């Protein structure tokens, strides 16, 4: 299978898109069409259970029309040529009727710039192509990991191994651009469940990437560490609530960059008057040690793509540079309304959902301090490991990040005393200002991100270790 070429269903349907767009633009000032297909393979192995199955595919067409004031859209899973043209005709009829009717949109906000002319097809680069392996070989890979992990400790009651391979294909057309892309994303996770007869605990290790199998290999050391960590969770205590000096691992740093800060600089939040960050534009908001970037073009990131769902080519955005808030992230609508340059952050969960401003790979820039030096500098504090959740609060800028566990630091040394789970709260600018050291390491972790409680898209976040002050509980 040549997964790097556009799937035949999309390739065939995409031939009609330039004509569809041209027909729609006879009625409205700007139109665009997007074809999307997501799908893949998932293998799961647990004690006494195995499955190899398709990741439920989603496929459809979105027709977008700028009516002079806002975007209207019509979307359908039927990609037959006849249906697509019928859909466009019906859609234009609805839009025109609304323009003529009582519910007339407000005065025009001006025309939409379709961007410079461009035709291109992109595909994820990988060394070890996962599609070269059969489903049986992928199942064997998971069975092998499960067997190896299962033997590591008698307190293990189950081990779950999950391999997921997702291919996201898109074709975008407006009057200037004809773009297509295939993004291949992989995730491999091992989750270890342990019990001492009284309580159950667990921990997990995982790798993810846009790329090939070379990016997600798990070693014996990885398995040993996750089993030891799961067992150590059995002895975890609740952290005494209070303010602490904290060292965040890259995973926790990333959730601070993404959840606590990143959502508040999505420019649709500016349009809705929901962003406290607006007051800080061009001003210091963080310690001068802090850089935060969002980069959909980051090679191998789980949130990587070549162009966004509105045809904007991916490139990095410096959100914070040397502690100063430089710019936010935009989609076409927010950039148009706010009259700011676009970034490639217009993304949708599927053809059934609207585009929103969304992050991609969001991270703190690398610093200069060795991690060992950071830990040695803490008299009494906590090393935070493994974020498990986070939630945005763009207006109040309160931070909620939950860490799976933390390890006590006393007099510059990790004591091994474990706290779990740990809630990290505080006021975002206070936390960013409190950053007193930035590690010389760097790591991204992938996952999916929602807007509020819905609209899930693949992302990654991370960066280096950070030393900061935060309230734990």
């Amino acid at each position, binding site marked *: 299978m040549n997964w790097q070429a556009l799937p035949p269903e999309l390739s065939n349907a995409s031939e009609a898109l330039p004509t569809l767009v041209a027909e729609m633009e006879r009625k409205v000032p700007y139109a665009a069409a997007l074809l999307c297909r997501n799908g893949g393979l998932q293998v799961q192995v647990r004690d006494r*259970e195995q499955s190899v199955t398709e990741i439920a595919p989603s496929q459809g067409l979105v027709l977008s029309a700028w009516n002079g004031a*806002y975007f209207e859209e019509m979307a*359908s899973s039927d990609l037959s040529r006849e249906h697509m043209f019928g859909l466009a005709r019906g859609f234009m009829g609805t839009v025109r009727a609304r323009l003529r009717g009582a519910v007339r949109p407000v005065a025009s906000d001006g025309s939409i710039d379709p961007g410079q002319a461009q035709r291109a097809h992109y595909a994820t680069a990988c060394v070890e192509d996962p599609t070269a392996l059969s489903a049986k070989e992928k199942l064997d890979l998971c069975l092998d990991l499960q067997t190896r992990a299962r033997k590591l400790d008698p307190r293990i009651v189950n081990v779950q191994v999950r391999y997921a391979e997702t291919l996201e294909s898109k074709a975008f057309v407006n009057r200037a651009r004809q773009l297509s892309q295939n993004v291949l994303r992989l995730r491999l996770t091992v989750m270890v469940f342990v019990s001492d007869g009284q309580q159950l605990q*667990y921990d997990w290790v995982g790798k993810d990437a846009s790329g090939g199998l070379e990016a997600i290999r798990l070693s014996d050391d990885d398995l040993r560490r996750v089993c030891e960590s799961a067992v150590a969770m059995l002895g975890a205590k*609740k952290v005494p609530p209070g303010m602490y000096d904290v060292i965040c691992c890259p995973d926790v740093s990333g959730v601070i960059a993404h959840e606590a800060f990143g959502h508040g600089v999505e420019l649709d939040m500016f349009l809705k008057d929901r962003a406290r960050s607006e007051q800080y534009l061009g001003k210091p908001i963080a310690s001068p040690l802090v850089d935060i970037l969002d980069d959909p073009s980051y090679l191998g990131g789980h949130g990587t793509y070549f162009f966004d769902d509105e045809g904007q080519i991916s490139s990095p955005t410096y959100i914070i540079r040397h502690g100063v808030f430089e710019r936010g992230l935009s989609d076409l609508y927010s950039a148009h309304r706010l009259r700011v340059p676009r970034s490639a952050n217009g993304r949708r969960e599927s053809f059934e959902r609207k585009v929103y401003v969304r992050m991609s790979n969001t991270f703190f820039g690398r610093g200069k301090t060795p991690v060992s030096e950071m830990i040695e500098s803490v008299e009494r504090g906590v090393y935070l490991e493994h974020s498990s959740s986070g939630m945005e609060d763009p207006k109040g800028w309160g931070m909620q990040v939950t860490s799976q566990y933390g390890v006590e630091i006393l007099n510059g040394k990790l004591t091994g005393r474990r706290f779990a789970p*740990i809630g990290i709260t505080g006021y975002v600018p206070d936390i960013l200002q409190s950053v007193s050291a930035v590690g010389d390491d760097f790591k991204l972790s992938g996952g999916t991100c929602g807007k509020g409680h819905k609209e899930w898209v693949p992302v990654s976040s991370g960066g280096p270790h950070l030393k900061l002050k935060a309230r734990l509980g």
Partner: protein
Amino acid sequence: MLQQVIDALRRQEGVHDWCARHVEKRSTQYYVIGARPESRRVATSERVVVTVMNDHAPAAGGPELVRGEADVTVLPSDLLRLADKLSQAVFMARLTDNPRYGLPGPLRHPVVELADPEMQERPQEVAERLVGQLTRSLAAEKNVRLSSAEVFVEESHVHTQNSRGVDSHQVGTHLLFDWVLLAAGDADEMESHVAFERRRAADLDVPALAQRYAEHARDALAAGTPKTGTFPVVVSDEALDELVVSEGNSPLILRSSAQLKYQQISPWEVGQSIFTQTPSGDAFTLYANALLPFGTRSGSLDGEGLPGQRLSIVENGVLTRFWATQRYAEYLGVPPTGAFGNLELPAGMHSFASLLEGAGPLYHIVAFSAMSPDPLTGDFVGEIRLGYELHNGQARPIRGGSIGGNLFDVLAAARWSRETAFLGDYAGPRAVRFPQVTVAGA
């Protein structure tokens, strides 16, 4: 489309059992920012979700046949290569070796109210009317305005058939109303953000909810930080739904599932207390209710064809049964019950007002930033988006800081309100009081 898929399944070699669900959806979406539309969308989709089972000799050898299953989704454009798609499903199913299990047969499916005729017939009007109600309600609220709102009015038709004779059609509607309100103070603004999910528009009292959330936004302007320590905590309304249902990932739901019991992850046993400590609160009883009229997790049948039921899961703190799909019911040797459905708790004995009584300090939480107890352990930590600190009946708004603990520990000592609420996937007391919860504040 469904018949084409079923005909192909019957022809396909290696298909020993199957289940097919034809799903058609139409979603009408309306978005506003302030007083102006941001977007209007209509999305339609059609698919058949197929589960294929294959029986084969195990890879490790042995006399007993084993079973593998695989899901594939057939999209309209897949019909031209349907045989390939199903053959791929059989290939995947053949790879895996699991103990054999069956599918439900043709059982009687109860009638459950799932669809709002108005949402089916006039989705755009419903969406615009709800936004209009919200806007008008906010006009009466001092210093509060609408930041943004999103309304999704959806209709779905699901036709389920399987190889054992199930053949059932279910029509439902789903409403999502998400809004953000902004309250203006002397030099600052604060927001309250909430999303409601229902099956019927009439189940949302928009004027009353707008009034409540406008008050939340205004109170957030004056909110201070809670104290640090162990205090009584009351959780109510949508915050309570988040704590106990957690969008279906509640440890109450997962630990009572036959699947997690089979996987040796649930420590619960039928006939034993679900609590590790001696219960000191009100008797805790829990129902899994798929028959709740207009419940967002209700259904006359579940995904594989088992009839919806109202089941007692926990009575007086003791597990009465595991809820089970056909597969895990057979594995554990328990009756199949179908999917969990909505979470239902009986009304409590105490008035809501009495739960808030006491010298204090006592914390009443009305909104979390996000509250998802660990689905397996029940441990939780949640930032307080808005709450109130009460001293002798005097309330002071608070935000920031967090509460933390273990869900089973706090439920063992909980007292429940007699006032009840229906919140889409939850029906039960409007509020709960926990005598001792750790608060991390100033």
